[in-house]
């Protein structure tokens, strides 16, 4: 460009000087012309030299600017030396061949449509819908519908980071009770992720961390229902409530996973505790440890305790529940990757003041879930429970399950449960149940809780 400009200026000057020449000296000699040309070429040379100087100055300025922008001239410029240019060329070539150059972490690089979508989507929470549908038969003939199709639950979950310190999880459910659909809040809590010293806190409504199975959502269980002992102690949907939780990852010399959790929440549970009219709280503590036995197998052992008044807090009556749980997992690698075994056992005991006086009861379940092909699992569960209100009333449950994972997002499960009781329910001491469960997830890819 500068060269072109110089040339134009030169031509203009030529024309200009030619005119002056013709005006002053009507007949210039060849010598004059040659002299004129010499002068002109000198001027061009000078112009070219200044241009070169300018270029050099610009380059120096550019280099200084680079150093200022990059901050650390020593470390950055050293490996730059010669190969940097070919590295740069390669990088620009890669940029050119990629369908999109948007970095996954949303750094601006002009990624076009995908980049735009990413920016818009990233402020929305992850939304997922889970639907649990059952077809069931029961030998029981009670007042409620026992046989038929049941749209058991629709779970609508929102989750995402609220700010750099907290994350929100909100799970609402729509389920059918007494012939009507009702909406409920299953969980809705804020997790404080940036606490120091391995601490983490939750505030809100959440499923309580009592044992292994209770914190797990209905559709994520390896069975169709919660184990009988959980249903008897905490009700059909398990123990949950509004409150707070603080958990601590305990550092230890063995470098094992040990976590301690303390929870305090409203005494809403009316099965063993006093119920929602109570002004008192449930206090709960849980210790969980995890051990890798081999690269393919591990063992989780936990202990929990929960206590709360069960007489609205006035008469000094309390219910206390203790639990221990052990979970063994085996999941080989390599060619055997699609086999796995999950074996879990929980024992629970409760002491509570009831209508018939002090009741000391216990219950347990032990269950194995074996994956024999990539998409197939079989499971067995044994249940034992004493009714917390009346220790003489007991039940034994025997159930078997066959699960087919149609894909990561849909599963079918066939379950058979036989319950043998020391007390009658709807006139029967025994109950047979056969259920087919269809469960599917729509929307955000769920993270698979371990």
């Amino acid at each position: 460009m500068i060269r072109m400009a110089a040339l134009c200026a030169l031509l203009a000057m030529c024309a200009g000087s030619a005119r002056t020449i013709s005006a002053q000296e009507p007949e210039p000699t060849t010598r004059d012309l040659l002299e004129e040309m010499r002068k002109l070429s000198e001027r061009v040379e000078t112009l070219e030299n200044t241009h070169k100087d300018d270029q050099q100055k610009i380059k120096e300025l550019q280099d200084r600017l680079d150093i200022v922008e990059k901050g650390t001239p020593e470390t950055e410029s050293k490996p730059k030396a010669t190969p940097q240019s070919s590295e740069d060329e390669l990088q620009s070539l890669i940029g050119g061949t990629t369908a999109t150059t948007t970095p996954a972490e949303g750094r601006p690089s002009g990624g076009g449509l995908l980049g735009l979508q990413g920016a818009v989507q990233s402020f929305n929470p992850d939304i997922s819908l889970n639907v649990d549908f059952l077809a069931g038969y029961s030998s029981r003939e009670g007042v409620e519908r026992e046989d038929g199709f049941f749209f058991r639950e629709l779970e609508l979950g929102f989750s995402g980071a609220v700010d750099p310190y907290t994350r929100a999880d909100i799970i609402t459910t729509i389920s059918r009770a007494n012939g009507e659909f009702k909406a409920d809040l299953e969980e809705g809590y804020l997790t404080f992720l940036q606490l120091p010293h391995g601490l983490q806190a939750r505030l809100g409504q959440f499923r309580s961390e009592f044992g292994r199975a209770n914190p797990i959502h209905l559709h994520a269980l390896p069975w169709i229902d919660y184990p009988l002992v959980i249903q008897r102690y905490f009700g059909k949907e398990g123990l949950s409530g509004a409150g707070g939780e603080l958990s601590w990852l305990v550092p230890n010399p063995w470098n094992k996973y040990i976590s301690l959790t303390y929870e305090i929440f409203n005494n809403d549970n009316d099965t063993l505790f006093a119920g929602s009219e109570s002004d008192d709280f449930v206090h709960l503590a849980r210790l969980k440890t995890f051990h890798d036995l081999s690269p393919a197998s591990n063992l989780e052992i936990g202990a929990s305790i929960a206590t709360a008044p069960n007489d609205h807090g006035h008469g000094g009556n309390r219910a206390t529940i203790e639990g221990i749980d052990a979970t063994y997992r085996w999941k080989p690698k390599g060619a055997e990757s699609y086999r796995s075994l999950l074996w879990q056992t929980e024992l629970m005991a409760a002491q509570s003041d009831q209508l018939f006086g002090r009741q000391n009861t216990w219950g347990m379940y032990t269950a194995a879930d074996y994956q024999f092909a990539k998409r197939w699992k079989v499971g067995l569960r044994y249940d034992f429970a004493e009714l917390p209100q009346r220790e003489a009333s007991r039940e034994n449950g025997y159930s078997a399950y066959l699960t087919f994972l149609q894909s990561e997002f849909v599963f079918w499960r066939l379950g058979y449960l036989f319950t043998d009781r020391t007390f009658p329910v709807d006139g029967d001491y025994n109950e047979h149940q056969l259920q087919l469960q269809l469960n599917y997830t729509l929307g955000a890819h769920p993270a698979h809780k371990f």
Partner: protein
Amino acid sequence: MRFHSTHSVAATAAFICLAHASAQAATKLKVVTTTTDLKSIVEAVGGDKVEVTSLGTGREDPHFIDAKPSYMLEAGQADLWVRIGLELEIGYENLVIDGSRNPKIRIGSPGHLDASDGVLRLEVPTGKIDRSMGDVHPQGNPHYWLDPLNVRIIAKNVANRLSTLDSEDASYFADRLKVFQTELDTAMFGKNLIANADGAKLWAMLLKGQLDGFVKEHGGDSAAGGWWAAMKPIAGTKIITYHRSWSYFANRFGLDVIDQLEPKPGIEPSPAHLSEVIEKIKKENARILLVEPFYSRQAPDFVADKTGIKVVAAAASVGGQPEAGDYIHMIDNLIRQCITAAHAATTPKTKE
């Protein structure tokens, strides 16, 4: 009473924790990677300034790693978390990072590195996507580490991030990056070509389609070496893969993937789809069936039995097979097996 015992346990644990923390005053950067391939790269670049743990072993499906509490423990002690990205880790990453209670490695922090930054991506969906298309990754196929060119970029990303976290050793990381890239380039193009041009230039020529010309000028085909020259004779070979995990490898080495055993990504092979694949193999004369060792051999063996296609069960990750001890050996092993299979598949056909 029970609460008393809990308190004393907590107090003891707190004491032990303090003693432990002071004893473990580490000078090395602790890095947790999601896959063994990333581990291999971080170790190459980080040298003795880093201590690397990988969650995966290379012997499992990298999409399905469990969010084990012991991983949370590892992540809790990490200065840097490195992931493949492009949603490969979507099934467990959040659970492990949240469970680790380590603010340093949260997404967006300097201690969280997405290795896919700036890599060459394939199969980035353009229209609307939904799950009827199987397990499609909205940001592109995440198996990009099987292209050595992308590993050059990962290594650079790693070196940059290590230098940010440990600026004192920036020149150490820069030097090691250079060494690793040269090693990788030499493995790719052979010693002779590297002697004539630096690696980046060779890669650039390869991308621009000028490498053949360059080789002619510098001593002809005998001058070319490495993976590139080894794969050239079988370039254009039609192959079938189990999962859509070999696209980058095939793209780099000129193999032509005509179909997958999975009808859609992550969806199990169905009899109907397999019979289509069998027809396709026969019609188009596909010769290699590439399978990661963790997949069931039932469908691949069935297809091989019907068509004579050669099944290559080769590790697509470091540690997936004993031969795949580090990244370069993993690609070596892959290429060796592909070449052997391609020759084995041709010999009986020419005899018949």
